[in-house]
């Protein structure tokens, strides 16, 4: 005890000192913010980015940050889903859709002073293609594997065959990328943040820093976790990532090649996980905007003078059914009964933000390939009961998974939506066993590995091609659906390799009709996620793809 006391005293003094220093720092920072420095724009994000290298990302929180510092060969028009030029002002393909040629912009400078050339583009693609070791884990290379398949040397059987063949630079500003098979993923895939073009110097530096780990426990490479190494061409450059505060700071890049420079000097993304805390931070003036506004807060915020622009609709919320879990679920009549039992319009009316619609198929009506002739399933509990009786499944028990503590762009309040759906299912005599799971990692893992009878999930499109929706789910057997239907699988693999856009659209319509007849799950709704800004900022153009360009933001 005697020895312990001075130690305890010392610890106490140390803690006190740390506390003082910490509070000192905090107040200093507060002074900076409130000191009238209106050139700092702070945006409240719902989660931390996974990395500041977009090539390693697969989620919206990561891409929101990296999108400000990195650019892709092709981009989307502001506020829309049409493809427009990015780093390449023009692009074309050969007739088979296997050779994609990009005409690059002139005079594009990277944050570290390097110049953009066709060689650099090829260097980028070759980097991804030659990824080895831990990089081949989908946690790090999800989008590469989804769009370009595997790698130069696949190290595991789970990795698909590569579709990427090579990249050539016939002249300074022309890059040609060759793929083995045409795909509905091109050219849309070239607009994905994951395929942003990095500076050649940065790519060399990346090579010295390898990720490690297996399965879900991946350690991201060091360069992607702190500012300094990554360099893109965007209007902002990453200057600091303070993980303790959950803040990524970006500075205006003065040599930006585009026509207009960023409207603010400094852009900060601050992570505030809790929905109501984000709202309070905006109301208190601590932040200037935040994403995923709770629908109930929209009217309150508007009344208080905040700006709440409405985005276009580009997502789908659905109730997934895992057929192989129960023989009853393999019976199409039972699945039809589930669809007839759900009052989807009620969810749209009472839960979803303004502009939401009940879904009739697995793509929103803004995507080409939407079919008007799909089989629809009206809300009709009596019919649902009849169907269940006919199928001999009156005593159906369903384990229903839903995520807790999370807001998704397509699903503002999962627990409430679950309660409503559950009441509908129980009304037709189905016993529902609730299975609430935390979103990360339990929920995503459980649903992907087929651990629930039914579950709630959704998807926000990456680019405007129905394959980005339908292909994600139905281009082959997956545990998250648990069914075999060769008609649907074949239709989608056919459409994937069809180079002609018009033919593809017709095929999508056919696929949508086949899917809705087979009814692998019940599409519920499409709804626009709300975003809010303080009254004193000039808004960026809001995007249905949730791809806002914060360079457009400025203070009034």
């Amino acid at each position, binding site marked *: 005890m005697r020895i312990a006391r001075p130690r305890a005293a010392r610890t106490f003094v140390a803690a006190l000192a740390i506390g003082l220093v910490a509070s000192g720092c905090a107040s200093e920072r507060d002074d900076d913010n409130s000191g009238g420095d209106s050139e700092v724009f702070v945006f409240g994000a719902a989660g931390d980015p996974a990395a500041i290298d977009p090539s390693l990302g697969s989620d919206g929180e990561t891409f929101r940050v990296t999108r400000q510092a990195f650019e892709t060969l092709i981009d989307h028009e502001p506020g829309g889903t049409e493809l427009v030029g990015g780093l390449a002002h023009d692009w074309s393909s050969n007739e088979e859709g296997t050779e994609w040629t990009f005409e690059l912009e002139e005079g594009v400078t990277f944050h570290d002073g390097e110049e953009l050339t066709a060689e650099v583009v090829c260097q980028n693609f070759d980097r991804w293609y030659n990824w080895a070791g831990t990089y081949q884990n989908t946690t790090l290379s999800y989008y590469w594997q989804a769009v370009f398949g595997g790698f130069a040397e696949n190290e595991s059987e789970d990795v698909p065959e590569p579709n990427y063949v090579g990249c050539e630079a016939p002249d300074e500003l022309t890059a040609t990328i060759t793929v083995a098979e045409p795909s509905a993923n091109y050219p849309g895939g070239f607009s994905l943040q994951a395929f942003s073009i990095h500076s050649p110097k940065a790519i060399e530096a990346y090579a010295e820093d390898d990720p490690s780990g297996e399965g879900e426990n991946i350690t991201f490479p060091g360069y992607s976790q702190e500012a300094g190494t990554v360099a893109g061409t965007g209007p902002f450059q990453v200057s600091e990532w303070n993980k303790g505060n959950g803040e990524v700071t970006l500075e205006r890049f003065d040599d930006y090649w585009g026509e207009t420079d960023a409207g603010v000097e400094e852009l900060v993304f601050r992570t505030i996980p809790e929905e109501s805390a984000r709202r309070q931070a905006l109301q208190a003036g601590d932040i200037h905007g935040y994403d995923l506004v709770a629908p109930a807060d*929209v009217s309150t915020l508007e009344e208080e003078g905040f700006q709440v622009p409405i985005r276009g609709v580009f997502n789908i919320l659905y109730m997934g059914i895992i057929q192989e879990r129960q023989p009853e679920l393999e019976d199409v009549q039972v699945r039809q009964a589930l669809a007839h039992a759900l009052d989807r319009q009620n969810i749209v009316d009472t839960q979803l933000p303004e502009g939401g619609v009940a879904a009739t198929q697995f793509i929103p009506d803004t995507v080409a390939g939407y079919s008007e002739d799909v089989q629809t399933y009206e809300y009709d509990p009596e019919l649902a009961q009849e169907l269940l009786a006919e199928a001999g499944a009156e005593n159906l028990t369903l384990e229903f998974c839903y995520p807790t503590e999370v807001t998704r762009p397509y699903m503002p309040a999962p627990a409430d939506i679950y309660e409503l759906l559950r009441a509908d299912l129980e009304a037709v005599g189905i016993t529902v066993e609730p299975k609430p799971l935390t979103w990360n990692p339990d929920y995503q893992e459980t649903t992907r590995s087929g651990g629930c009878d039914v579950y709630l999930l959704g998807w926000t499109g990456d680019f405007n091609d129905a394959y980005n929706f339908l292909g994600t789910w139905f281009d082959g057997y997956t545990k998250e659906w648990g069914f075999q239907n060769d008609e649907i699988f074949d239709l989608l693999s056919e459409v994937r390799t069809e180079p002609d856009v018009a033919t593809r659209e017709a095929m999508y319509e056919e696929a949508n009709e086949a899917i809705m007849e087979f009814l692998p799950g019940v599409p519920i709704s499409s709804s626009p996620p709300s975003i809010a800004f303080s009254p004193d900022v000039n808004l960026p153009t809001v995007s249905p793809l949730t791809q806002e360009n914060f360079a457009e933001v400025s203070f009034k």
Partner: protein
Amino acid sequence: MSTKTDKIDRLAALTAQRETTTGGSLWVEAFRRLRSSKMALIGVAIMALFVVIALIGPWIAPHNPTSQLWRDEVFTNRGEFVGPRGENWLGLDHLGRDQLSRMLVGARQTLLVGVISTVLGFVVGALIGGVSGAALAFGGRAGQRLDTVLMRFIDMMLAMPSLLLAVSIAAVMGQSLTTVMIAVGVVQVPIFARLLRGSMLSQANADYVLAARALGVRRRRVVMGHVLPNSLGPVIVQSTLALATAIIEAAALSYLGLGNPDAAQPEWGVMLAQAERFFDEAPFMAICPALGIIVTALGFTLLGESMREALDPKLRS
């Protein structure tokens, strides 16, 4: 050690002393004092009301608490809620369920968790405390050691903030109603153990025990037949107080999302957590369960505190 343990030991010692001069036992005296205390009467009234509601709640509830009868009238996306009205005295919740019915039925679950966890704490605590007290008083040197080991363990549990301990247990065991009961019960264990041990130690030196020992009654019989029954009094008093904390802690755990995974089942803590999101638009939704928890806990605390005061004249000044 801490004021907490001091308080517990003191209560044990005091209740064990019999007042030989007046002829009336401490218990009679205490009951007389209790009856004249307004605090105690209010406590009893609230407690009685709560228990009655919990018992008959499901029968007097005007509507089914889990069915979303008016779900077409509540628009959470536009911030339009339905407040108190003729049909629904306490308004509707965010999914169009009758708030009054949910309050009435929710009381039962709250009481159930409170009672079961207190019983759990009582049984396990009394077991440890009894063994420890008996070992120290009659077990010789080996008994002393056993007592030291048990009591240091109990002191360790006491040293941890009770809610923190409960949250840790609930987090490890996963989300369910049983978890909440166990978590809240475990928190009560050290209090009961310490109390019974202290009480038994005071009894161990009483004349009748000495007499029994001198007559050659076996140690086991002395403990089971004489010391233990006479030591249980203060532990039973503690149960009332424990019930109050159990109810608050059960509500707290449910509020934190560690309670019944079926969120449709009404429970005050869960209701409060669900209403919090809509506090700006529909404060009445949060006020009902919050008031319910506060008033009930107040009732139990009033009763428990006044019982303690009645038993401990020195605390009354």
